[in-house]
């Protein structure tokens, strides 16, 4: 499974037809696997709803995750509750897999009075309770943070591992290289999870790097790189589980490249027809990670079409109910723009806040 071993192709457990490599099947109970499947479907349906809500002008912006659910849900299920997540802005399926209720995600999206980010940024979500740092929008900025967090955990002798998510575009940035270099030097307990979805907005993978894989870049920083099929949830789970356990044992960082595809636009503000052919998208739809996992579950007698129809129906009702509730909540007060700038408010902000309240 190391970069050398998988030189012939990305690590895969479930084939397109749903048959499995029995030798590499991870130890997962049926209920765990069904939970993973449910999380993928929930993420896909909520994603689709958010796209529509944005088109209707009801939420500001959304960065869709359609097609990348296996990479995110699979990797997030490999984490323990003590681990910390440093995501980028496309990681909604990770939050769902982490147990964040969709009501919280929708409070954020509607920037209502219960928005955990107080309406201060459009990063999908962040929560101390779920140990998720809200994603910084400038690409790659979360990567050094994750390394620092991991170094601190190591200094304190705690077993927490940091995982950071980013895309292929981020690997062009200095912060990616500086952070991986730090992690190698200090043997930080961190997992770098790159979702190579092959596009940084419009620029294809070939414009980010001349290397065949991103995984191989780990070699230059003195640790292991792993290349996995990002549309295979069990491969993503296994690779991450192994990297997390390795980090927890004090054996340092791992770079995982999940090779996948962004089926949708970069965000609701993007139009992919300007830079790629629909045929290419259709080709990747055939590798849909949710359909593949479903075939696997059905083949093994763990799931049926009836179960599936019921699940979709149930999720649709949940989402509709939560959207209604989130939309009914009060908006944030105007002076929230002055909240959370500093721990205690300096005089110049107090003056500006007073001015605003005098004028509204």
């Amino acid at each position, binding site marked *: 499974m190391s970069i050398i071993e998988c030189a012939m192709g990305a690590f895969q457990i479930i084939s397109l037809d749903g048959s499995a490599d029995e030798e590499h099947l991870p130890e997962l109970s049926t209920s765990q696997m069904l939970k993973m499947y449910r999380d993928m479907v929930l993420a896909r349906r909520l994603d689709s709803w958010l796209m529509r809500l944005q088109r209707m002008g009801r939420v500001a912006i959304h960065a869709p995750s359609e097609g990348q659910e296996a990479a995110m849900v699979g990797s997030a299920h490999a984490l323990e509750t003590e681990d910390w997540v440093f995501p980028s802005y496309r990681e909604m399926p990770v939050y769902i897999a982490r147990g964040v209720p969709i009501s919280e995600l929708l409070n954020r999206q509607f920037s209502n009075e219960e928005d955990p980010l107080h309406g*201060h940024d459009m990063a999908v979500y962040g929560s101390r309770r779920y140990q998720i740092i809200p994603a910084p929008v400038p690409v790659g*900025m979360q990567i050094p943070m994750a390394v*620092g967090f991991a170094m601190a955990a190591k200094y304190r002798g705690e077993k927490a591992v940091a995982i950071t998510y980013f895309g292929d575009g981020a690997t062009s940035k200095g912060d990616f290289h500086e952070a991986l270099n730090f992690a190698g030097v200090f043997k930080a307990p961190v997992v770098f999870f790159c979702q190579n979805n092959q596009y940084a907005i419009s620029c294809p993978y070939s414009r980010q790097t001349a290397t065949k894989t991103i995984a191989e870049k780990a070699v230059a920083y003195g640790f292991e790189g792993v290349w996995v099929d990002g549309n295979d949830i069990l491969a993503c789970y296994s690779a991450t589980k192994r990297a997390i356990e390795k980090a927890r044992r004090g054996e340092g960082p791992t770079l995982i490249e999940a090779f996948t595809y962004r089926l949708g636009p970069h965000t609701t503000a993007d139009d992919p027809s300007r830079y790629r052919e629909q045929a290419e998208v259709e080709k990747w739809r055939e590798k849909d990670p949710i359909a593949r996992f479903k075939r696997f579950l059905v083949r093994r007698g763990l799931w049926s079409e009836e179960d599936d129809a019921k699940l979709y129906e149930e999720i649709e009702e949940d989402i509709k109910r939560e959207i209604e509730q989130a939309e009914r909540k009060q908006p944030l007060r105007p002076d929230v723009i002055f909240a*959370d700038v500093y721990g205690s408010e300096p005089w*110049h902000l107090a003056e500006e806040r007073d001015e605003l309240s005098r004028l509204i």
Partner: protein
Amino acid sequence: MAVIPLAQAINQALREEMRRDDRVIVMGEDVGRRGGVFLCTEGLYEEFGPDRVIDTPLAESAIVGVALGMAIYGLRPVAEIQFADFIYGGFDQIVSNIAKIRYRSGGQFSAPLVIRAPYGGGVKGGLHHSQSPEAYFIHTAGLKVVIPSTPYDAKGLLISAIRDEDPVIFFEPKRIYRSVKGEVPEGDYTVPIGVSRLVREGSDVSLITYGAMVYECEAAAEKAEKEGISVEVLDLRSLLPFDGEAIIKTVRKTGRPIIVHEAPKICGFGAEIAAFIAEREILSLQSPIIRVAGYDTPFPLVHEHLYLPNERRILDAIRKAISF
């Protein structure tokens, strides 16, 4: 009480805070065995070991970005940028991430960390060892910016910065690291962030300044005194937040404010102080607000004594203000 140079006062603050609180970590280029290129971290590696005095790879963005991750974990990192001129490599992390984490997380996370950096000219350091980049950071909500000018303040302000709940950019005037000595008490004390220091009382002209320029202003004030002009000198010490009350007080007293800093004039911090005075105290003014600043050129290697505000240029401004 021991009389020690400014650099040693910094060292004392770090040492005492590290002894008091095991969350305090020092990190940066050459801060370990070498003790820092200006020896501000001398002896810390020997006392606290490599896990708390971390020699890092040469990468400014990761130094501050990693410090942020440590702060989020709950440590109190003090990151050193070897020269303020090199801080731009970490600029994105500082202004987009460190300054904003409290805000963009709705107050769930914060960045209690210090970034120390020697700044300013007068050491024949040339373009990339002499700049004063404070204005870039004062323009950024979420940061605090502090510049001490005495050993006493350096120690007291650095201790305050380490204990602060928000990120503090701590610029140290390197030209006076060794040349300025002063009484520094052993043990715990703090100088509050946001409060200025009245260096010298006077009634005709106010010199509003900070950092190494405090000493040029004092020298100019002495000369002016001989010409019968009474000059007040205010050392701001904190630039964000700054001590607005003290500025108003001195302007009301003298009516002739002159702002002195090493950084270039256009959009330098003097512009903010000038606007602050103009907005609030225009009727107290007896002369235009004058700025004496570094010229709007890159920092020159040769003739830096002509580039930097000096006694002569400050005195010239004082005379202009009086004769207006």
